[in-house]
Each structure stands twice: as C-alpha cells, then as structure tokens.
C-alpha cells in the first residue's frame, strides 16, 4: 500500500503560517524583547541602555517589596480561584437540581457574564464605595470601618470579593454544563446505590465533573494572575503605595510608572517562567487524577 506523501512541498507550511504569524507577532517577539531588555539597564529618558547581565534579576529577587507582592499574589490567586470555583460549584449544583423555573433561575445567575467586565468591575467597586457602597454600610453594622483604597487589608478584601464575584458567572456556566453532561441514568443509579446526597456528590458527581473542574482551575489561576489587572488598577485608584497589588500590576508599575524597563522586564520573565512551570505541573499531576470518560 502506498502512503500518502506531500513530499517537500511548501503548502503545509503555508497553512500553518497565519497561526505562526499571530503567535510570533503577539507572543514570541514581545517575549524575546522582554528577555533581551531584562539584561539591560535602560536610561529613564531613553538615551540608550547598558548591559548589566543578571543584575536586574538579582535586584528583583533580593527586593523585600517584590517578595511582599509575590506573597500577596499567591494568596490572592489561591483565594480568588478557590472561592470563585467553590461558590460557582454550589450555585451550579443547586441550579441543576431546580426543576421548576429552572430556566429563569439559570438566566439570572448567568447575567453577570453578559455584563462587560470593566462595567462589572466598576459595579463591584461601587459596592465598596466609601460614601454610597452598601457593603461598606453593611460592614459598619458589625463595627468594621471598611476603608477601601486606604487600608491595605480592606483593599485586599474588596479586591478579592470583586474578583471572585466577576468570575463566578463564567465558572457557573461551565460547571452547570458539566453537571448536565453527566448521564441522568448514572445519577439515578447512584440514587439507588447511595442514600446520602452529600456522599453521592463526592463519590459520583464530582469525580465525573473533574474534567470541567481541571479546566476551570487552569482558567481561574490565569484569571487571578493576569485578568484582574484592570480591577486592581481601579481599586488602588492610582495610589498603589500602601495598597496590595499583584505581580502583574507591579510589572506595569515599575516599567511604566517607575520607568525601570530592565527591572520590569526581569519581573515579567520571572512571571513567564512561573506560569510555564505551573502549567506543566497542572497538566502532569492534576490531569492524572482527572476522569475523562
């Protein structure tokens, strides 16, 4: 039998070209540029640059401020991803169980997703507004003087709550469709096999939901790390001095506010490496325990 051969034609490469071009222009080139400039000390006024080797990295990693931001970023990412996933899962399980009026209930829960993220972010910030924010008011009932933008921990709290709130709708949609793709008969078999709904959830429903959950963990970590940039920018009101920021925001601050292009490049290279390692870890270790049926 003859194998189909394309020979050394250029056609396959032509087909690949658009994709490669896009990746090259929007990822490889900027990434390469970041790696290059992380070895240079850029003149703040644009008058040339000096090669400094690994100095930028040394500076970044020995900087106490950087370490503080890194620790906050880890907490922020873990908390946002955890609560956004957990709350969405609870809502999805409840929505899935609703028989009457299921459609309107689901639509209500998905609405948040239909709002443009900056608008939703702004709404979240309004909720924490010092003067008119209902959450600030509610906090005051419990004697908590919530001062977003002024108190470090209060800002962190508001940031996490808003970030979680924004992400719940997306997670909800995925969890709900994941739940609905579990065959009805499998769940019914479980109902006959197991009395406790709680136990049934953890032994049958959740394991069958793991492909969705795994995907969402990756998405949520990426979200918390990168996509919360605008939110942080709005929350810190351009006064990041005493406020919590994440690593991505710090890259922006040091690079564009501090004009330290070399240091900020070194930071983004470090961040890139972290994400790279994280992705490998996720796929290597978590995916192994995921049940793709």
């Amino acid at each position, binding site marked *: 039998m003859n194998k189909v051969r394309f020979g050394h034609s250029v056609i396959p490469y032509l087909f690949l070209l658009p994709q490669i071009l896009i990746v090259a222009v929007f990822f490889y080139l900027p990434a390469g540029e970041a790696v290059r400039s992380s070895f240079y000390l850029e003149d703040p006024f644009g008058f040339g640059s000096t090669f400094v080797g690994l100095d930028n990295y040394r500076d970044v990693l020995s900087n106490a401020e950087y370490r503080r931001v890194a620790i906050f970023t880890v907490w922020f990412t873990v908390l946002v991803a955890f609560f956004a996933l957990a709350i969405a899962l609870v809502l999805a399980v409840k929505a899935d169980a609703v028989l009457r009026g299921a459609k309107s209930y689901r639509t209500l829960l998905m609405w948040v997703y239909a709002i443009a993220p900056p608008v939703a972010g702004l709404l979240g910030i309004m909720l924490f507004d010092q003067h008119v924010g209902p959450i600030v008011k509610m906090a005051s009932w419990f004697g908590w003087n919530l001062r977003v933008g002024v108190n470090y921990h209060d800002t962190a709290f508001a940031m996490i709550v808003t970030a979680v709130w924004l992400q719940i709708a997306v997670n909800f949609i995925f969890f709900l469709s994941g739940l609905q793709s579990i*065959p009805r*008969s*499998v769940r*019914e*078999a*479980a*109902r*006959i*096999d*197991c*009395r*406790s709904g709680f*136990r049934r959830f953890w*032994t*049958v429903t959740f*394991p*069958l939901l*793991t492909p969705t959950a795994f995907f969402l963990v990756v998405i949520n970590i990426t979200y918390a790390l990168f996509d919360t940039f605008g939110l942080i920018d709005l929350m810190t009101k351009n006064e990041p001095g005493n406020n919590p920021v994440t690593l991505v925001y710090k890259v922006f601050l040091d690079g564009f506010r501090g004009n330290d292009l070399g240091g900020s490049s070194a930071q983004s290279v470090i961040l890139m490496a972290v994400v790279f390692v994280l992705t490998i870890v996720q796929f290597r270790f978590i995916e192994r325990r995921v*049940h793709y*049926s």
Partner: protein
Amino acid sequence: MAQVHIERVSKIYSGTQRAVNDISIDIPDGEFVVLVGPSGCGKSTLLRMVAGLESITEGKVSIGDRVVNGVDPAERDIAMVFQNYALYPHMKVYDNMAYGLRNRGMPKAEIDRRVREAAKTLELEHLLERRPRELSGGQRQRVAMGRAIVRSPKVFLFDEPLSNLDAKLRGQMRVEIRNLQKRFGVTSIYVTHDQVEAMTLADTLVVMNNGVAEQIGSPLDVYERPASAFVAGFIGAPAMNLIEAVVEGDGRALAVGASRLAPFSHSPALEPGRPVTLGIRPEHLRRAHANEKADMDLVVSAAEILGADTLAHGRIAPGGTGAAPLIVRLPGNVRLETGARLPLVLEPGAAHLFDGETGRRIDLAEAAVAPQQAAMARA
C-alpha cells in the same frame, strides 16, 4: 424477596396529562413481570415509580408488606438495570459493584465475597480491574447485572436492559437474565418494547398503551385471547391482521369491504350494522387443499422469504385498493407469484372479534368460534 403490589397507581404531569392511569398489578414473590408497550405508553414511568425515581401522584406501591410511596430509592431494597447500563465511568468494575454495598456500611470481607461471587457467576472475574470504557457492550451489561445481583435486593427492576445490544447478544443475554432470575428467585419487573423479549421472559405480561394496562396475563393467554385490538396487534410477529368489518344480515356474517365473510356461524347474533374488527393471525391461515372450499382468497402483492416461513402480503379478493390488506404465514417451500390468487382456509377457532369503537374483545362462546367452512360469498 418479596411480593410487589401496585394499587391504582397514576402519574399525572402538569395537572392533567396522565402518563400512567390507574394501574393495579399484583406481583407474587419471585415472579417475572414484563411491562410491554410502544414508546410513550407509560411503562418506564411505572417502573421508575416503583424504583422511587419518579414520585407517585396517586395510588400506592408496596414492596413486601411496606408501602414505599415516600421511601427513598436507596431504602427500597431494589436494584435497577438501566438501558445504557449507567455504570460509574470513573470506577473500576469491582468498585462499580461494591459501591452500593459500601454505602450501606457492609463489612469489607462480605463485600469482597459477594462481588467475587457475582463476578464468577457472570464470568467477569478477569475484568474486575478494568474501567467500564474498556469493556464491550455485552460485558458492560453483565457488570450492570452484577451490580444488581450483589445487592441481593427484594426486587430487580429492568429498564429496557438489552436494547443497546446487537441482535445476537440480545438473544444470549435474554436467556441469561431469565436463568439468573430463576436461580435467585428474585421478584422482577422488566420493561421492554420488544415483544419477543416480553413473550420469552415473562411469567406475567402487562401490555400497556396510553398509560393504561390493556391486558395482564400469561404470555400465552395474551397471545391466544388478546383483550383488545391493540393487544392483538402488538403481540405477535408479524402482527395480527386486523380487518375492519360490519356485522351484516342476521348478525352472523361480516362485510369486509366488498366481500362477505361468515366466520362465526354459531356465535350469538350481533346487531346488524355494528362496526367490528376481525382479527386473524398470519399463522392461522393456510392454503386450501385442492378440493377444499376456501374461506377467502388472497391476491398476492409481495412475498417475504424468511427461509423457514414465507410471508405472503396482499389484499383479500377481489383485491384493489379498497380491499383489506392481509398477511399470511406460509411454509418456507411455497413459491408465490405476484398477482396470484391464493385460496386460504382459516384454522377453526382462531379468529378474534373486537368492538369497532372501543377495541375491546367480543367474547364468543367456546363452541361458537368455529368458522363456517365455505362461508365466503362474493358480492
């Protein structure tokens, strides 16, 4: 093991729609009951009400001496085999079978003993460490059976368990299910739309249509004395010929289209003009011998050669579009020409009469069911 009582059970959706309408079935201990009917007849709904997967709108279901209407499915002491097996895809075969037992807090050693015993019975021993997706359809079906057996429940419920298998495997599993049920003696309710499965498996057959039990009886009883035209048409393959007719003359003859037929010479006279349905099974007609007077003639339009049998399709003479269609089962060696006229004789006592409006059986005295030989007159 236990008897099951279904007492005047109904399922009403959205206030008015009766999916199951006032059904009562008494199932003695160890009996195999088959619910059969076309799709949408309510058979699955009824089974699911027994399982507890569907709430009971009206009536009472009891298993053993206990009314189970409000009892959780897991507490009813039932096991169910689903159409698509419903195995847990993330569990190994062993765990699939052990899952229900673990949730009941059974000791590990006992679980192990039961699972291994069931695996041995079902020849699954070498598959215990596999996951469902690595199994063939027949093997999955066995695992589903195993999951039901290890529970040693009071009742087995089967929801079309064989319809996802190919024909050969279906036949094999049918025999196997029957043997297992006999061996364990567990009361079973089995839902199917396949009448061959229904006939071969059932101790008692429940033929359902539109949410109603049209007839409850032994398979032979249902075959020989169908209670309605629906049952007559549903049970038996090929289906019974159901011929629209009108009572004529002195009430002992039937008009079928342009022909006149008098199969019930001694029957109590029916009022002339009453519409009825005459039912004749294809296997109860035979070709008339050379000197025999035929009951009716068939104008052949097609022949299906099955090997053992030949099915002759056509219309009752004089033929044409107005005449009633008829199927006759003939021996396999009969060769038929399209358009040929086939003289037929009806076996004595083999014709059925149903009311033209209600479809219910019109019972004729035993002696009265002999067809009058040579009673066919042509208009």
